[in-house]
């Protein structure tokens, strides 16, 4: 039966890829984010690709008053959500203006967490539904290059872990997705990228994880082993390294 998916941060390349995959298998969509023109284009695209319903709705992590209207738009279909929001200003920009940290934490952690907290009762009521939280390998260990973003994502990972604990007992499920480098606007032009995955591959991995009720996935899968190595470096060595 057709289910409903709310995609938060729907203008991102990964969200667009997931939206298309969901549309082609016949699920309805609420595309939530800030760029209404862009999301309306994706919604139209998804309708043509087979989604029974697709609409764009405003979501701004920094404006919590945008959250409730999305929940008001739910019907009695099983509801699922996937969160792709986050912001990653350059670390040297943050070093020059530490106030930027607040925005990173709201965009990448507290904003989406607050929304998911409002959504959780809907899943508990229905006794079914999946939340996909897109974190980052950057959240697995604080590194020189992006530790503020990493810290926000680490907070989000921990939140998702707790939410999984809560929703599991009500019939719901939470998948934590930790992508490595993905070929998106965020990584375009950053030098020395390697093993870069396409957004379509991430979308496939997410759907497979949802179907198999996996808890935490890395995408592509080999990032699990890369991060295993990075996490296992003793702090006394790690603190002197630039990885």
């Amino acid at each position, binding site marked *: 039966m057709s289910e409903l998916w709310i995609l938060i941060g729907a*203008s991102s*390349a990964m969200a*667009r890829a997931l939206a298309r995959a969901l549309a082609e298998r016949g699920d309805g969509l609420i595309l939530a984010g800030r*760029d209404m*023109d*862009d999301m*309306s*284009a*994706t919604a*139209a*695209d998804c309708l*043509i*690709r087979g989604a029974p319903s697709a609409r764009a709705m405003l979501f701004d992590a920094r404006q919590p008053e945008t959250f409730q209207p999305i929940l008001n738009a739910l019907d009695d279909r099983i509801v699922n959500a996937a969160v792709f929001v986050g912001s990653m200003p350059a670390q040297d920009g943050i070093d020059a203006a530490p106030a930027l940290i607040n925005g990173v934490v709201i965009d990448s952690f507290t904003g989406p967490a607050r929304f998911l907290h409002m959504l959780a009762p809907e899943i508990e009521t229905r006794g079914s539904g999946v939340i996909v939280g897109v974190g980052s390998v950057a959240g697995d260990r604080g590194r020189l290059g992006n530790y503020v973003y990493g810290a926000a994502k680490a907070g989000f990972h921990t939140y998702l872990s707790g939410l999984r604990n809560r929703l599991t007992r009500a019939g719901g499920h939470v998948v934590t997705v930790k992508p490595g480098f993905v070929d*998106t*606007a965020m990584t*375009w*032009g*950053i030098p020395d990228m390697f093993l870069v995955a396409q957004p379509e591959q991430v979308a496939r991995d997410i759907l497979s994880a949802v179907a198999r009720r996996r808890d935490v996935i890395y995408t592509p899968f080999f990032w699990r082993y890369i991060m295993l190595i990075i996490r296992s470096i003793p702090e006394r060595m790690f603190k002197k390294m630039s990885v």
Partner: protein
Amino acid sequence: MRWKIADYAGWGRALRATGDLARPERLSSLTALMAEEPAPAIGNCRSYGDACLNHGGRAVQMLRLDRITGFDASRGVATVEAGVPLGELARIFAPKGWLPAVMPGTGFATVGGAIAHDVHGKNHHIAGSFGQHVRAITLVGVDGQARRITPADPLFRATVGGLGQTGVIASAEVQMLKCKGDVIVVTERRITGWDEFLGYLDASDATYTVGWIDATATGATLGRGILEEAETGSGLVSQPGRAKSVPFDAPGFALSPNVVRLFNGAYYRRVPEKGRTVVKPIQEFFFPLDRIRNWNRLYGKEGFHQFQCVVPVAAAPALRAMLERIAKSGLASPLAVLKRMGPGHAGLMSFPMEGYTLAVDCPNSARATRLIGALETDTLSAGGRIYLAKDSLSKGNVVRAMYPNHAEWAEAVNAADPDGVLTTDLIRRLDLRNA
């Protein structure tokens, strides 16, 4: 970041470029980019030469603007962003009973590229060129403004077939054609020689007609090949599996004359003497080579050139002489196509004209350069023209002499982009901005 330094190449891989690429994912990023740092657009780089290259400069890669943003089922008009590959459009719409009105030989070509080259397909004799089915174009100018232009607009004729020189095509409204379904019924028959081939091409009343020609056959067998005539239909055939890929550059001998001659002989005899009718998924007919990703690697690291010309019907003997020249050279690869074209075209610099079109691939070499140079001279004296989506070797004076509306086009383009920020390697090599 907006720009990424990249090495890229035309499909023939004989010409390459290094430069900054942007890849906007939203219209607002594209218009902002064009307002601040305008650059020519590129798509999937399926043009063979340097139409998609801007060496040492910037280009906007359109592949992430790839959504179908509307479909009016009563009129069959789809609104599509420029980066949508035509094969994707066919995949989505064929089961609904619609196909892009014109599809070139690869489904990886994008809508933007199809407009900028005013491409043709196997139904050109009936349906005309791609641009004739475009109802409107949203064009982002060098000022960053998005404007909707229709065929009534003078800029339309300079944009269709306009090699990206009037602005960046952001999206288009394209008229789709009704089809019966996503399978195709193909009748293949052996053609024993040149005159028979032209006779069949002239007489064919099939919607889709194309000829494969054995460009290595000489003497009595000159011009032998296989004629394919096809109609769409409904039914159940197994859809194509995942595409295979050529993992590395093939060695030089892979396409040596003897290998090609052997292959062509076998390919010719693949079709029974009395012909046959087969039913296939549409992709296998329209985009036969798309099943093998990176097939251009078969030509090795030096790459290859494709020569494609069209000559008027009355100049058929000249085209026969050209085929003879090709066959004698022994340079042609198995990929050679002969087709009857109708008069349909939509732009000032469009390639199609009524006549016969011949396309041949040759591995990149000094001899191939000389052969293609001679073929260009032959084309010009036959009153024909060469296809700029394929060209990598021609000269400006030759091309300008082949395109009668070039001066009018150059004037329109120079008005739309006075500083020449949209020029590409092709435009500079052929000095096409110079009226």
